[in-house]
């Protein structure tokens, strides 16, 4: 056993393998940094090249990519407040406030260092368990998997900020959004508003970018400054590392959480960062700084999301069933290389398995090192005037969102969810619960149905179910024990004069839940039962909120409006919303590339007051960048009316 591990280690470090791993790491960093593109996009670029490569090199390349995406994506989450990929959404909550405070350096170094520890931890777990994990994974039946989704949903308690009711409603809305589309059990189209695009469900990347990125971009534009309120990055590089050592308990436990969630096939790694974050809040004695830039809020999700990769490889290697989106593609890559994942692989080619594991560990270390090295340069972006940064961010998120299903629906959904996010932010409806609900919706419903259908009600008494139920209750108790956190988005309740806008939004929630009830009542039992239960409870909650708001401004956490704090000279939200709509309208007419060029030139001229020469250079480089992306990644642009009428040359197609 030990000799196999040793020889695998030598194998990884020899010859061209390391070189290919570095190539994978480089691609992983790039797709990680670009918002919306993640491991799946990266894997898709590398797959065509692996054909004919020697097995170890090709695996090294793919693993290199898999390992560093959740390290590289930290940049955008911390520096921009935009999720770099689905894996580091929770990092935003505290990482971004730290960057605004001028502590970007500390946040980044804490994130990279804990990422590295999480990644190596995942590899160690894999080393130890790869031979014995099979019965452990098989012990998790549909019933235990359902309970794990409940445990995830229980995190909503600590992520709701000052108003628990609003947190629950936000989660319910997320659940219903996640359930929209063809029902898994029957294929009936529920909650789709008659829109065909919604039949496949809204892609996670569209929801995440809409709910976090668009409100953030508009808010920063309105402030009309640089991201960092302090002009320096801070010299916290060493401090971040010290933070990691000081909070070693959180880092290790969250690595464990990441591994476990990753190892559960079908649960999806994208909830691991939220569960880790929730855990960190629950066990903290002083919760007051969470959401305002507590370094523990960075350490927890970052150690977890890198550990996911190790965990997710367990079912991939042992059962041939991927534990996450990007391991699904890794699995495809293995099959292309002629490696058949499954129990046979572990029994007959253990050396190969250990090579994979050690590549994972080394790639994590290398990736963290590279990110450290790149940080001082990348972090400078936070000191630029935001009017120069915003058009680039908008370009990338719209382009990335379109890649979700290459349908105009992606873009419109991004805009619609962006508006929702904008108002949720304004009226103090916490957004993390919405994402948690969205991510867990499908799993919660499917596993509940499966548990009932496979096992009848006996599933309730399985030991595993009882254990997870106990953990869930304990974690909720721990979260409630010591007061609430500051995760709400500002602090303006009490001074609100005009509550009418809030009332409209609360009534919108009432309408949304009423629609859900009306819609699902038409369908058969299996389509109906789960969303109906959620919508009925949520409708009651939404009515309650509406009544409280209607009764006017009182000292209640429910009444909340950030606009109460808006400075008089501030441009309205609608103003920038119209700019976005303008970008889309231009794209709908002349296609994305031309539309974007027009938007860029106009935005830089009017908003950044850029001189004509600089304007031309920036607009030109944006178009070049888009063309390069489209060429390298074989990606299409949203087409406009012009493209439908006239045959345009690439890249204007």
């Amino acid at each position, binding site marked *: 056993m030990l000799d196999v591990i040793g020889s695998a280690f030598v194998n990884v470090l020899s010859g061209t393998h390391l070189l290919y791993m570095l190539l994978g790491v480089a691609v992983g960093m790039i797709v990680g940094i670009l918002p919306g593109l993640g491991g799946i996009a990266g894997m898709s670029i590398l797959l065509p090249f692996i054909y004919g490569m020697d097995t170890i090199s090709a695996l090294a390349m793919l693993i290199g990519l898999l390992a560093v995406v959740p390290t590289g994506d930290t940049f955008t989450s911390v520096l921009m407040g935009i999720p770099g990929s689905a894996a580091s959404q929770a990092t935003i909550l505290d990482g971004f406030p730290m960057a605004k405070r001028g502590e970007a350096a500390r946040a980044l170094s804490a994130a990279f260092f804990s990422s590295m520890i999480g990644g190596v931890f995942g590899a160690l777990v894999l080393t130890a368990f790869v031979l014995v994990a099979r019965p452990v994974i098989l012990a998790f*039946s549909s019933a235990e998997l359902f309970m794990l989704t409940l445990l995830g949903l229980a995190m909503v308690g600590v992520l709701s900020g000052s108003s628990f009711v609003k947190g629950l409603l936000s989660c319910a809305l997320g659940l219903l959004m996640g359930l929209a589309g063809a029902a898994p059990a029957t294929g009936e189209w529920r909650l789709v508003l008659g829109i065909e695009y919604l039949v496949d469900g809204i892609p996670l990347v569209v929801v995440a970018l809409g709910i976090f990125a668009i409100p953030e971009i508009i808010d920063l534009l309105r402030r009309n400054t640089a991201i960092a309120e302090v002009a320096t990055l801070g010299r916290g590089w060493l401090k971040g590392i010290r933070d990691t050592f000081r909070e070693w308990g959180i880092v290790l436990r969250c690595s464990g959480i990441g591994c476990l969630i990753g190892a559960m096939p079908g649960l999806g790694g994208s909830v691991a960062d939220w569960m880790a974050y929730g855990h960190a809040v629950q066990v903290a004695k002083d919760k007051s700084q969470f959401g305002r830039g507590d370094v523990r809020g960075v350490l927890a999700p970052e150690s977890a999301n890198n550990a996911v990769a190790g965990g997710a490889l367990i079912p991939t290697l042992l059962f041939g069933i991927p534990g996450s989106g990007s391991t699904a593609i890794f699995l495809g890559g293995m099959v292309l290389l002629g490696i058949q994942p499954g129990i046979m692989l572990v029994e007959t080619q253990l050396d190969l398995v250990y090579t994979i594991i050690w590549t994972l560990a080394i790639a994590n270390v290398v990736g963290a090192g590279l990110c450290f090295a790149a940080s001082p340069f990348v972090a400078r972006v936070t000191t630029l005037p935001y009017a120069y940064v915003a058009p680039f961010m908008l370009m990338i998120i719209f382009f990335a969102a379109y890649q979700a299903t290459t349908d105009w629906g992606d873009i419109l959904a991004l805009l619609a969810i962006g508006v929702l996010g904008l108002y949720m932010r304004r009226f103090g409806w916490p957004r993390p619960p919405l994402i948690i609900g969205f991510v867990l919706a499908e799993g919660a419903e499917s596993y509940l149905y499966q548990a009932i259908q496979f096992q009848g009600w006996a599933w309730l008494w399985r030991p595993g179910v009882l254990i997870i139920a106990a953990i869930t209750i304990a974690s909720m108790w721990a979260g409630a024990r010591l007061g609430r956190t500051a995760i709400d988005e500002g602090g303006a309740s009490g001074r609100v004069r005009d509550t009418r806008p809030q009332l409209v939004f609360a009534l919108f929630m009432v309408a949304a839940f009423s629609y859900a009830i009306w819609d699902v009542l038409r369908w058969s039992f299996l389509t109906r039962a789960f969303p109906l239960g959620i919508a009925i409870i949520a409708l009651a909650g939404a009515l309650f909120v509406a009544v409280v708001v209607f009764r006017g401004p009182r000292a209640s956490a429910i009444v909340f409006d950030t606009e109460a704090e808006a400075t008089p000279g501030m441009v309205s939200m609608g103003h920038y919303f119209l700019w976005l709509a303008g970008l889309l309208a231009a794209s709908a007419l002349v296609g994305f590339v031309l539309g974007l060029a027009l938007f860029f030139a106009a935005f830089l001229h009017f908003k950044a007051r850029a001189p004509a020469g600089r304007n031309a250079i920036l607009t030109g480089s944006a178009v070049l960048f888009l063309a390069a992306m489209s060429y390298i990644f074989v990606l299409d642009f949203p087409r406009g009316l012009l493209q439908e009428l006239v045959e345009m040359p690439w890249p204007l197609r």
Partner: protein
Amino acid sequence: MRNLKLFAAGLTLLAALTPVQAADFSGKTIEFVVPFPTAGGSDVWARFFAPFLAEHLPGKPTVVVKNVPGGGSITGTNQFVQRAKPDGLSILGTSGSTQLPYLLDDARVRYELKDLIPVLVSPTGGVAYVNPELGAKSARDIGKLRGKKMKYGSQGPTSLDLVPVLAFEIMGLDVDPVFGLARGPARLAFERGESLIDYQTSSAYLRNVVPLIKAGKAVPLFSWGVLNDKGEFVRDPTFPDLPHFAEAYEMAYGKKPSGTAYEAFKAFVVAGFAAQKPIFLPKGTPKDIVDTYVQTLDKVVKMPAFKEKAGDELGDYQQAVGPAAQQAVKVALTIDPKAKAWVKDWLTRRFEVKFDKK
């Protein structure tokens, strides 16, 4: 008989290939559109073929696989039919999951598969297996399974998984499908003991179920079988030791299966498995381009390097090229209206599936 059929196919192929005015793809990029997500079965299949096409099409073009997932392949196929030009630079790789909604008149389908030009078809098969604790040792013991309630993990009532449900029903087994499980998770549910009966397509079966059988954790019952040129089922060449479905039925009941249900089963086995993965060119593609593809693919599937690598991935099936592919797709898409009506009615009766009037 089989040889004769091959010979005939060869002759037609030869005839088709004689007036060669080969298209040239120098410096071009060919988009191989796959209406499924990256890394799924169809994607791996397409990526398996892509480098062979790039190497052997005249002019050595670049071949990129482009995934357009959604709607269980309906979205990408609709998009292809609407956008692809008949210039040989866009090709489409579909699967049984594309053919099934077409056959069941799904309202979202806006593609006419009969208009597309198939140049290659990769067949596959499937094997049904059960939990050994049920007491059956082989297909001979199917009698022992009757009357036992068995759960089965299925993707959905109108998915490709309707073929096994239909098979179990004809076999008189009391099988209760639990919907919402893709093939991989369904096998996991079987391994956990949550479901007692399951099936996998050939490559997944070889990869993941054969080790279970060796470990005594699964018992294979029967394969779907493949149709010979008389339209009769014979044993699947990948599983020569396993009886095919009709054989297993005969073992259990002493007579051959018959009736509308069985006719429907046959039709859907062909559509879902025998002609599972076709490569299509767009409607109206000029003959020289079609011929170039057919010729290239014919050369490729006969190459030792292809056969060697295909073994694991594609199973021991004859890749149908050119006229043979057209024939296979034609058979798959031609379904007896009576059988179709029966299946729709059966889906509505058993699983409350509602069909929109088209």
